């Protein structure tokens, strides 16, 4: 098995080259300065996203279409990294990539639940495919056939042999009684993160250290946001909160999650884990606006960890993982910009939502 210098020579060189192609905070500011959606698209054409937009004319582009196109870049980055990564690390990268497949799967299931409210002259699949992440040949889900199957049960039947079969077979019992997608979505999320963590733990040496650090940071973010949201919005009981969260991560310990589930003060737990995040209590006083801000701050923590991975020894899986996450965060910023410009939001309404700032770059 190739690892260390021999395994990472090509990929770390390539990833560094791709890293230099990421947008800078100045680029993001310039894009944010675009007066409207079409100017934003024109400005995007002058960035590395240009080639994904070049075949399309400005006046024919819808926000949804532009988002789909720019996501192709992330998909290409994953393909490129998977192909060049040392063999023992590929399962981890593939599993990380599956995050978008899980998102697609949820979108497909939601579309089946809501399809009856759509206009009949537009085929359901045509509506759905525009919001799916361009997963390409990696996909294991027959999305179109699922949408056209017409029922959640029939759609899940089509997942036989896929990595989701076992998880959904348990969750479907609850769906059939509750007729609510919540248990299916939670089961898919938990299964995804468990597998991802397991893949990171299979690595050894520096790969394992960096894999657990980066994946763990991301897991911390999700685990914390889950427990807070389930508690505040869904009012779930302690035992449910424990079962709907995970007992591992990088900074966040199981005791922290259990303490929140048991009713401990959320702000004090977060302040202990992330001492550099201030005013958590104020954010939690108004969860509707405060929780997105808290999530934003936690994402910036992950970004900082990713940027830090580029300093020092480059011969480990940390670099590719960090690059892929930074690319994803960049696209999240672009989605914010696209939606802000297409709905004519004021600067002060969308700029604070951007992740890429001088602090994180």
């Amino acid at each position, binding site marked *: 098995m190739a690892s260390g210098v*021999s395994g990472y020579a090509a990929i770390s060189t390539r990833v560094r080259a791709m890293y230099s192609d990421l947008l800078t905070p100045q680029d993001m500011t310039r894009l944010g300065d675009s007066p409207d959606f079409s100017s934003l698209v024109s400005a995007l054409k002058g960035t590395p996203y240009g080639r994904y937009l070049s*075949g399309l004319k400005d006046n024919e582009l819808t926000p949804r279409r532009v988002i789909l196109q720019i996501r192709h870049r992330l998909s290409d980055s994953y393909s490129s990294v998977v192909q060049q990564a040392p063999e023992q690390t590929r399962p981890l990268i593939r599993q990380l990539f599956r995050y978008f497949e899980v998102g697609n799967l949820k979108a497909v299931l939601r579309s089946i639940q809501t399809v009856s409210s759509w206009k009949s002259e537009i085929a359901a699949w045509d509506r759905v495919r525009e919001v799916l992440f361009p997963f390409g040949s990696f996909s294991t889900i027959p999305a179109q*056939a699922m949408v056209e199957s017409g029922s959640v049960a029939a759609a899940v039947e089509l997942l036989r042999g896929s990595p989701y079969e076992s*998880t959904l077979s348990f969750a479907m019992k609850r769906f059939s009684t509750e007729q609510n997608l919540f248990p299916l979505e939670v089961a898919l999320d938990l299964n995804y993160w468990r597998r991802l963590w397991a893949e990171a733990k299979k690595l050894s040496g520096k790969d394992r250290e960096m894999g657990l650090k980066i994946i763990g940071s991301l897991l911390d973010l999700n685990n914390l946001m889950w427990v807070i949201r389930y508690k505040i919005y869904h009012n779930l*009981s302690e035992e*449910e909160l424990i*079962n709907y969260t995970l007992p591992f991560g990088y900074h966040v310990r*199981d005791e922290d999650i259990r303490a929140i589930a048991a009713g401990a003060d959320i702000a004090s737990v977060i302040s202990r884990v992330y001492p550099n995040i201030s005013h958590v209590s104020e954010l939690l006083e108004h969860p509707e606006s405060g929780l997105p801000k808290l999530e934003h701050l936690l994402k910036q923590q992950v970004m900082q960890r990713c940027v830090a991975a580029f300093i020092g020894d480059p011969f480990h899986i940390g670099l590719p993982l960090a690059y892929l996450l930074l690319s994803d965060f960049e696209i999240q910023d672009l989605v914010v910009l696209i939606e802000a410009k297409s709905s004519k939001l004021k600067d002060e309404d969308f700029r604070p939502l951007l992740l890429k700032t001088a602090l994180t770059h």
Partner: protein
Amino acid sequence: MLFPKQMSEVELIVPSKDLVAVTRALSGYGVFHQVDSANLGLEGVGQNTWQDKAGAFSTLERRIQTIMQNVGLAEEYPARPGIDTMVDLDATRPQVDRIDEDVKGVSDQLSGEKKRLELLESQLRQLEPIADVNVEVGALSKSSFMHSILGVVPSANISRLRTSLLRVPHVFFILREDAQKPVVWILGPKSNSDVLERAAKSAYLNPLSLPEEFGGTPEQITAMLRKEIEASKQKISGLEADLAKKGALYKNELEKLLWDVHISRVMADSIVRFGQLRHTYVVVGWVPTSDLEDLTVRLKDASREILIETMATSRSGHHAHVPVALTNIKWLKPIQDLVTTFGRPSYGELDPTLLMALTFPVLYGAMFGDLGQGLVLMLVGILAHNKIFMKGLQSLGLLLVYCGFFASIFGYLYGSIFGFEGHLIEKYLHFHFEPTWLSPIGNILTILGFAIDAGIILLVFAYLLGLFNNVRSRDWAHFWFGHTGVVALVFYFSFLWVLNVLLGDTPIAPKVARAISELPLPFPTLAGAFAVLVMFSGFFRNMVEGHTLIEGKGFGGFAMFLVQSFMDLFETVIGMLSNTLSFVRVGAFAVAHGGLSLAIFSLAGEKPTIGFWITILIGNIFIIGFEGLIVYIQTMRLHYYEILGKFFHGGGMQFEPLKLNPSQEEAKP
């Protein structure tokens, strides 16, 4: 060969009556890259009415695939030349309906029975562990003081389920360990039944549910279940046999239907992306110019009234929308893979494969110069390429051959053979072999200086290629003020003049820098003036491109601009220094190669005993494997960072022609 294949844009006006024949001609030969007409902004184009038909073909294809799967037939797309035309949906659908109806009854029964078997087996698995408990299963749920939950739970959830119950008194049994579906039994006081139920539900525990007719003790129920399972298995075998018979009966018909519907679907998918006018269709796409004549003849055969307009696309200007088909010479494939790992050339851009085919092996050879080891590397490459030895390296086989060849050439120049140099060759190998050029280990500074000279020549060449690409793409802003533009190149010459002044007559002083310094040019003035131009190159680029000249407003914005400009200059100087000195590694590795060989000889001793030769053999294997790999990394690094970055941007769109048979589809890199 220096550029991707010349492409021609093709625009067709196709009469509706010839639509299918033309589509067949376009998709049958793998030379036409279609452009979605929706993205062209054509005027007068109506709603394409083929969307429904394409959807119907797609659904029909999937139905046939499902039927074939149900009757155990492999999904194959056997090419049937001569019948690749679009089938009539109305005529084909009843055929599929007929077969589907015949097969569906049995396959539905089979699927239902399999589900039932699965359920029975699951119930058996849950009851077996408590088969010796002599109580009525129904009594467990009727207890006045205890709440009991028996069922299967995802194995990954067990630990979390236990954690979630820590606050209430309970007992937790894992009755059956199983990687997927362990059986668990939870018991707790009735007063905590709500907590127990919530915990079980949120851990996705599926409780045991038995049909009413299955009453009694666990032992009695398991006996009943076993009997039912046996009967179910027999029924499944019978149904599978029935389906196999139907598979044999319909095999030929289904395979033909699958092919016909598949090609119809591919063609309909293409037509959906045509622009539909009232009586005609507009088709736009790209064809390699070399295939254009053949395609035109085929299109004319398909439709006499077709209008064909072709435009050869010049390589100058921006061509992000032109697909890129690289010229595939199999001998250059491994080099092309190195290039595409960095990026796919865009249409107007120089394909660096040929340049890299020369520089990569030469730089590798210069760092790994050894006649014997080079020949071994060549041999390994030949064996790997032909899958005789080290099959995993097959894709790199030819690259090893080229690198090995140049390593042996440089070995000849350095007078090194399997690490033996100078008097060691005469002493141990008993023949005379002198360096034809120089021995790196005996002329360290000379070889380092030579490496820097070679690097400067390569860098200047890369700068010139960058200018060439900018001229071709008419990117004047970058031609003048880009990081490899005219201003940067002249500043690099001035930088070499400074380097020459600083290094003076030292042996490491680059001769190329000295030659440049002797040119009758006012270098001090040039250095100052072009430093200012480099410093403000971003400003000038914005001016040429018509962008905002200075980002930020007011005095603060201007101060930030000055700081940024100074940092740009600083970065450029550091970059030029590091780029130039980066090539020292070529000489350094040539020296290190000799040094490593000497280390092996120190370990081997002086007397030519068997131990001596074994040490030399192992040492050579180590050098070929270890140093060979490190030199490969260094060569790649020099190309990716120092050379390609100067003139090559990549980002080309892959040429993806329409094809009918999926088995012929090009593997994406």
